[in-house]
């Protein structure tokens, strides 16, 4: 067996350029595969930062319909509700950006208590609470735009028209790197007041309530209790866990995710084509050699092992090269790697699953591309093959 492996290595080194190109081809294809898989997983990154015992209460009709602020007291009285907060999606545009690359929520103060994973300086929080036009911004957003405490951020309203100015009172971080802190918190009270006096677009309504379920209570039961409380009212609620809520958002893009999954299989096919081509070429060139080996007493399984190990050597070298490239790529900032696409995915990480899938793909490709020529050879007749001219 050891001899066969040595022979396989020698065979790989016979056409160095071809072997090198094939390894490169495998690496590129696998890099494409890893890129797409990482992309798909980045979509689900938001789910990881959600909590199952945090509930989102929203209007049952759809998210664009608000709920009256008067529900707040009722919700806090439902058994099993530990804390609650509320907020509105603000949807402002910064300067001449086309879409906002940070999210803004107008919230009440207790909303922040629902997110122990956010690290907020208590003094900064106090400063924010005492300034109605204050804002708390996330570290990623602050870094991206160079905002400091005391800066004024001017936003153009899309849902709430007009120019809005907010003063940065604090910069918060998140305990987990998965948490997207391109995020800005404003005062719901301030939004509501200007809405009531200038805009009159359903004032005294909130976009959603967030609820923390007390330990020992079932989140599903509490959710049901809240919805029952508002059944047959003018604004019925739909309460679900934060996890389900975020998954619902992702499933909106189900079609695109399916398309990407198909494309990631296409790239494996391309890899298979390149590899099979190389293996078939090598086989044709060595047809006479295999015939000689056969006549010397090598059995079909030996030749099979020879070709398979050659294919494995090449595809695993490709995987090795890929690992080196990935190690370098993921140590760089995402902007350098993805350019404009980085905007959509702030927290891109390589998961063990993706690496494992790429490794399996390398094995499968080697198995198929090695077996095909091996099958040919096991069928070969020595006398005919010896006459063969490549």
């Amino acid at each position: 067996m050891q001899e066969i492996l040595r022979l396989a290595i020698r065979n790989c080194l016979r056409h160095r350029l071809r072997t090198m190109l094939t390894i490169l081809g495998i690496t590129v294809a696998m890099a494409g595969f890893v890129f797409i898989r990482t992309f798909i997983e980045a979509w689900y990154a938001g789910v990881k930062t959600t909590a199952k015992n945090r509930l989102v209460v929203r209007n049952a009709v759809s998210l664009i319909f608000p709920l009256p602020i008067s529900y707040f007291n009722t919700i806090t009285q439902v058994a099993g509700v530990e804390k609650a907060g509320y907020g509105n999606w603000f949807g402002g545009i910064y300067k001449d950006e086309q879409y906002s690359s940070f999210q803004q929520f107008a919230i009440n103060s207790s909303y922040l208590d629902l997110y122990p994973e956010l690290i907020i300086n208590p003094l900064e929080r106090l400063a924010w609470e005492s300034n109605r036009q204050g804002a708390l911004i996330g570290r990623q957003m602050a870094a991206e735009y160079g905002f400091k405490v005391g800066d004024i951020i001017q936003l153009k309203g899309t849902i709430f028209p007009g120019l809005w100015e907010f003063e940065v009172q604090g910069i918060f971080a998140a305990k987990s790197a998965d948490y997207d802190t391109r995020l800005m918190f404003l005062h719901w009270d301030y939004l509501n007041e200007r809405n009531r006096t200038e805009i009159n677009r359903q004032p005294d309504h909130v976009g959603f309530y967030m609820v923390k379920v007390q330990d020992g209570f079932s989140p599903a039961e509490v959710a049901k209790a809240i919805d029952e409380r508002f059944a047959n009212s003018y604004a019925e609620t739909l309460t679900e866990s934060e996890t389900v809520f975020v998954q619902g958002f992702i499933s909106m893009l189900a079609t695109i995710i399916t398309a990407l999954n198909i494309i990631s299989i296409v790239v494996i096919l391309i890899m298979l084509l390149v590899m099979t081509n190389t293996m078939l070429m090598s086989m044709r060139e060595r047809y006479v050699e295999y015939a000689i080996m056969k006549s010397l007493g090598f059995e079909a399984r030996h030749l099979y092992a020879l070709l398979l190990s050659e294919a494995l050597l090449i595809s695993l070298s490709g995987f090795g090269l890929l690992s080196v490239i990935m190690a370098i790529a993921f140590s760089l900032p995402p902007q350098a790697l993805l350019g404009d696409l980085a905007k959509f995915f702030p927290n891109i990480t390589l998961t063990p699953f993706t690496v494992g899938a790429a490794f399996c793909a390398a094995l499968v490709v080697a198995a198929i591309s090695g077996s095909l020529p091996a099958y040919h050879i096991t069928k070969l007749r020595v006398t005919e093959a010896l006459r063969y001219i490549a």
Partner: protein
Amino acid sequence: MSLAVSYNARYLITRKATTLLTLSGIALVVLVYVATLMLAEGLRQTLAGTGSVENAIVLQNGAQSEIQSGVTRAATNIILAEAEVARRPNNEPISSTDCVVVVSLKKSVDHKPTHATIRGISKHGLEIRPAVKIVSGRLFQPGSKEVIVGKAIHKRLTNAQIGSYIKLAGTEWPVIGVFDAGPTGFSSEIWGDVNVLMSSFKRDQFSSITFRLKDRADFAAMKRRLEKDPRLKVELKRENEFYESQSQGLADFIKLLGTVISVIFSLGAIIGALITMYSAVLQRTREIGILRALGFRAGSIFCAFSAECLLMALAGGVLGVTAAVLLSFVTINTVNFQTFAEISFAFRITPRIALQGLMFSLIMGFLGGALPAWRAAKVKIVEAIRTL
């Protein structure tokens, strides 16, 4: 020269397996590339076709979509009294004051929730959108709780067929008709009477006002005047341009992602072509030597081998584009995150996209063939003839 090329072309046929494997690789890359372009184009055409250049649409200042927008009745009255608005003989403006909301409904396949756009239209709402036709059932009665459903979604939603009831704002609304607006965004919507919908959803502002212009050329001046009016706080857009902008984000995203993926994939296909062509040159070193000895110039050899690879790539390109054209029969449904609602659109091929696909395959062929062809051209005659 032509002899050399036909010699190379015939070689492709002799080495069937290798040729086929390499051109399949190129075909797959072209397929992915063309498919993403077709998807972005299908989306663009669908949204652009939604509006007419004859019409103008009014939204709240700053609003990026109809669901964000609110235009007061007072502002509406002022705008529709303007001289540029086209009128019927009885002096009524040819316009529609719409109320647009997004509602969560269930898909008929898996009963999972999806978002559908509900649009309330006023009396002349159909007149300013002549592409919209009722294909079965009838139009809703003004002032009654009835809805008609767009052709692209009436099969996709539960209870959206004629005779069923859709639950909106707490009550059941009978579906009494299906309308077809062609390949436009309207075909993915549900329509009802604007006044009934607004009172049911407790809205007191319109989402948008669409009106026919007496003269297209009036638009710019009217836009300038109305947007300056402090009473209105509105923005004016040409209807077709507005709806096209509604797909910009998704179309840009698809194109960007598709291009990045295609470029990575094409590297794989180019390497495949390189391997094949290097091997082809190596195997034929002796033959190349003979050709050179016969008087073929190095330049001709380079051209002939490049042509061999280009021919193979072009065949792959044709295969890829042909496969992509078959996708035209596929309809895609996804949520447009700008409008927050589901939209249905198809892959669309245009001559330009087909050409782009073929060009892409030729570029891959050139990059994969040039280096090996260069090596072929540099073959030393005497040594080559001596090789076995």
